[in-house]
């Protein structure tokens, strides 16, 4: 196949007009609004449904939704999750209904953010949500315990409320 090359005019072949218009364009960009986000001072706006680090959620009554079934612990590919289950105390409001995690640790140095824990959870208690800046000064500080995970997760309203019927 023969490709027809476009016939260039003298101005185009001189190359200078194109260079000058390019220079004018880049010069105009010097005065435009900058897109840089000054990170530690300015934080980006996180859209809803952002897939950040795994966190635990509570329902609107403030109950920990996790029932310590340990499915996430078993499915976790890098074995970042460690759960120690316990039973509710005898006289608690939801006692005898379900278990509760006594300890729930996620080693954020091991977590690979695969989201299997969220996918496998039958109680919709663990989610990959908002927090994106996972930092710590030591290996120990990078193991997030239950309190920290619950604090990061906040509440997620539960429309079914199956616990109230028991």
């Amino acid at each position, binding site marked *: 196949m023969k490709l027809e090359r476009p016939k260039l005019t003298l101005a185009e072949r001189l190359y200078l007009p194109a*260079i000058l218009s*390019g*220079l004018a*364009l*880049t*010069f105009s*960009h*010097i005065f*435009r*609004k*900058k*897109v*840089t986000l*000054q990170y530690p001072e300015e934080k980006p706006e996180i859209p809803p449904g952002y897939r950040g680090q795994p966190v635990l959620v509570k329902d609107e009554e403030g109950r920990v939704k996790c029932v310590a079934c340990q499915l996430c612990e078993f499915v976790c590919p890098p074995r970042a999750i460690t759960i120690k289950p316990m039973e509710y105390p005898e006289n608690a409001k939801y006692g005898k209904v379900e278990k509760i995690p006594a300890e729930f640790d996620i080693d954020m140095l091991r977590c690979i953010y695969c989201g299997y824990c969220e996918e496998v959870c039958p109680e919709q208690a663990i989610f990959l949500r908002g927090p994106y800046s996972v930092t710590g000064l030591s290996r120990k500080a990078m193991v997030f315990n239950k309190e920290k995970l619950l604090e990061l997760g906040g509440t997620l309203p539960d429309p079914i409320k199956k616990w109230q019927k028991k």
Partner: protein
Amino acid sequence: MEAILIHLIKIACVLGVVLFICAYIVLVERRVCAFIQDRLGPNRVGIPLWIRKDGSAITLGGKWALGQPLVDACKSLLKEDFVPAHVNKLYFWLAPMLAMSPALIVFAVIPFGSKLFGESMILADVNVGILFVFAIASFTVYGIMLAGWSSNSKYPFLGGIRSSAQLISYEICLGLSVIPLFMQVESLKLSEVVTWQSNHLWLICYPWNWLPALIFLASSFAETNRLPFDLPEAEQELAGGYNVEYSSMKFAMFFMAEYTSMIAASALMVTLFLGGWSLPFVPATGGVLVGLAHICIFLAKLFALLFFFIWVRWTLPRFRYDQLMGLGWKVFLPLALLNVLIVAGVIILGWVK
């Protein structure tokens, strides 16, 4: 004895100023490139003035990153100076020095001011000024070539080959493009070129000098390995070109060499085409104030041209190798030759007085 002392002070001042500009032009380049790309660029590091008891520091000009060159210099000094086992040690060590020194030596013959305290503001006012510049500037190719060759690996070698071909081709255009100037000025002395321009108009003001100015500018882009002619270090093709195997201060030397030769090329362009230290309505001779004003005028022109260098770098894409050679040999060389004839005709017609 006193003359030697004055000379040494002059040399120290020029070297200091050149290296200072060299350090800060890197910062300017980073800022300007960021602005052109709608970013902000470095804007954190200030010059530390005082460290408080709690460890925080009072800094100057942090918004403009005035301390960035200091930090960069410390970083390159503290990095590991790694020499790969397969290199030719002698030439590997020699190359950064050879790349850096010619660019600095060129400043010896650049007149950066008229007279200050009765001293002419030029380090060495040699009769063959421009020839000296070209003789020294052609040494730069050794630094780059030796770096490419002694590194003993593929990409630096390709970069070295490219640079030797490119620099040698464009030196011819560079030399030919300034011949018409010296036909008009009738001297090779750079100080006389500037005096002529302060008595007449700047050489760029004459229409028959526009073409040589363009060729000189484009060729000096090629000589200093700047975009759009930065083939010796084309990052995307050669992973960095001739300086791939270098690290730490040796790499910084190549980096500084590029910027120093950029400053040298701008200074030369200012001297030859833009009237050096002269400016209309500023007296050519006078007291200390006039002398200082001349130096400031020269520096202002220099900075304007340096900004242009940076501006072009972030506008134009790189030429292909055959395009580069074609432009040098098939376009610039005949045009430069033709221009010698044109200016000869202009002089015969008596348009230049």
